[in-house]
């Protein structure tokens, strides 16, 4: 069990000329839970991860992973020993066989679990002596995941892990992530597949255009975001509902639709005060929270 955040960034910024790929990021990822990093394509998720792992150098700000400051140093190298990472393109050396890949990667990590590796080899039906370049895409993905799952790191980072997997593969992936979490491993994965995130994430961070827009537990989001549909006897005044927590107001004649991230009770109270004829409050699915958040940005 780890104390303190497994990932912490402070005003982390990465600029390419005038374009900010990541802007003033203050991210804090808690230990012992599954955190999802949601965002559109090009939102800056991969850039953030590469900054954390030292593959890209930050323009300004700083960050630490497992307590170690990022950057080329002995400290950050030792940190990498406790981190398992699967990049978006599931990289493998094409000239190595499956067995050679496993021997190679396992030699760097004392947390390697040979029994888990063997079990996964069987489950994924990976041929030990086949070269990576002759493997199908699905098998390559599975091998790349095996190299991370057959370990017991403190932190598991995955960039779009379900990319390239069929529905059965995705199901197995989610089960493995849940199992890793049950083993005490902190899981941080980026995705633009809302459905996966909604099922297993404890915490959600939404990134758009390099900025962190939402950073909350999924349960908090579920409990506080509401869609409130109101009908009034006469055309209502929109400004009556411009209050804290109201993200968007849509009107159509005597109908008002309010999208609130919190404080829905106050909105409903105001509606009753203004003699609303109909008050309907419905929860909001993560997909809609995401779309609204990103749209507003």
């Amino acid at each position, binding site marked *: 069990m780890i104390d303190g955040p497994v990932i912490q960034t402070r005003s982390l910024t990465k600029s390419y000329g005038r374009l900010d790929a990541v802007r003033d990021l203050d991210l804090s990822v808690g230990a012992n839970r599954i955190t999802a990093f949601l965002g559109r394509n090009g939102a800056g998720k991969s850039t953030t991860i590469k900054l954390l*792992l030292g*593959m*890209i*150098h930050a323009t300004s700000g700083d960050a630490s992973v497992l307590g170690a400051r990022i950057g080329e140093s002995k400290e950050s190298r030792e940190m990498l020993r406790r981190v398992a990472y699967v990049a978006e393109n599931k990289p493998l050396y094409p*000239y190595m066989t499956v067995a050679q890949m496993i021997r190679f990667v396992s030699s760097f990590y004392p947390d390697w679990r040979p029994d888990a590796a063997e079990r996964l080899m069987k489950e994924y039906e990976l041929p030990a002596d086949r070269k990576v370049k002759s493997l199908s895409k699905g098998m390559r993905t599975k091998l790349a995941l095996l190299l991370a799952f057959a370990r017991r790191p403190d932190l598991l980072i995955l960039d779009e892990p379900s990319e390239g997997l069929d529905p059965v593969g995705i199901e197995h992936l989610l089960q493995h992530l849940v199992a890793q979490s049950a083993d005490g491993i902190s899981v941080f994965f980026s995705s633009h597949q809302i459905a996966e995130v909604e099922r297993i994430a404890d915490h959600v961070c939404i990134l758009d255009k390099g900025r962190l827009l939402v950073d909350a537990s999924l349960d908090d989001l579920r409990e506080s975001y509401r869609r409130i549909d109101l009908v009034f006897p006469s055309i209502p005044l929109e400004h009556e509902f411009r209050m804290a927590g109201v993200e968007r107001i849509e009107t159509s004649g005597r109908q008002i639709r309010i999208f609130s991230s919190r404080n829905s009770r106050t909105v409903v109270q105001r509606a009753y005060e203004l003699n609303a004829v109909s008050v309907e409050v419905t929860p909001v699915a993560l997909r809609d929270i995401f779309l609204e958040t990103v749209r507003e940005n």
Partner: protein
Amino acid sequence: MLWYKAWLETRGRFLVSLCAISIIIAFFVHHAEHVITPEPKRETYFLLFFVHHYLAGLWILSVVLLGMGGLLRERAIGTSSLTLALPVSRTRVVGVQIALGILEAILLAVLPWSVILFTTDLAGRTFPASQAVFYILLLISGGLVYFALAVLISSLIEGEYTAPAVVYGLVVLSGIIFSSVDSLRPYADLWRFMGGDNYFNHVTYLLSGPFPWFGALTALVVAALMLLASVAVIQKREF
């Protein structure tokens, strides 16, 4: 296991180079039959000198190939995210690649000469082994400059064909410069240095005189500086 990986990456190029060099050796062995006799003979020494030049040329081509690849190439094919996530410094990754490349380069110089010595031994060696050592040391100390150049260029240029093309272009360019700029000859002329032209005695057809330690050291320092530069380049790079 970094050494193992580097070996897997370069073994194809190494073996191809070895094959090509074997052809030169086969040529030597074929002609040696006529020329090797128990008594020392000038024709033997001239054959050695001649073969060495071809060997040197092929060796330069090979070590340039061996210097290719590296982390920049890995970025192009997508595996840098795997290598750089490993708990090892970039310096170590590049260092192992360089070290293995140098070892392979040395082998590519030593192996053919060993075969030559062995073959002439069969016929009763007629020239001292120290000649072989002289040739080998000249080749390696001068030639590692080209290996280092290849490593440096492949840390700067990403293309699979562009990088070697640039290096080979520079090799040819250097040859042209050496042969046309008179003030460079004979001592700053790297090719003459590697080929042994500067030390070739026209009477005995042997390499004679003291070994040019200063020249060798200078060339090695130039090579070392280029290698250090390539490490620095990789350190700063974004992957």
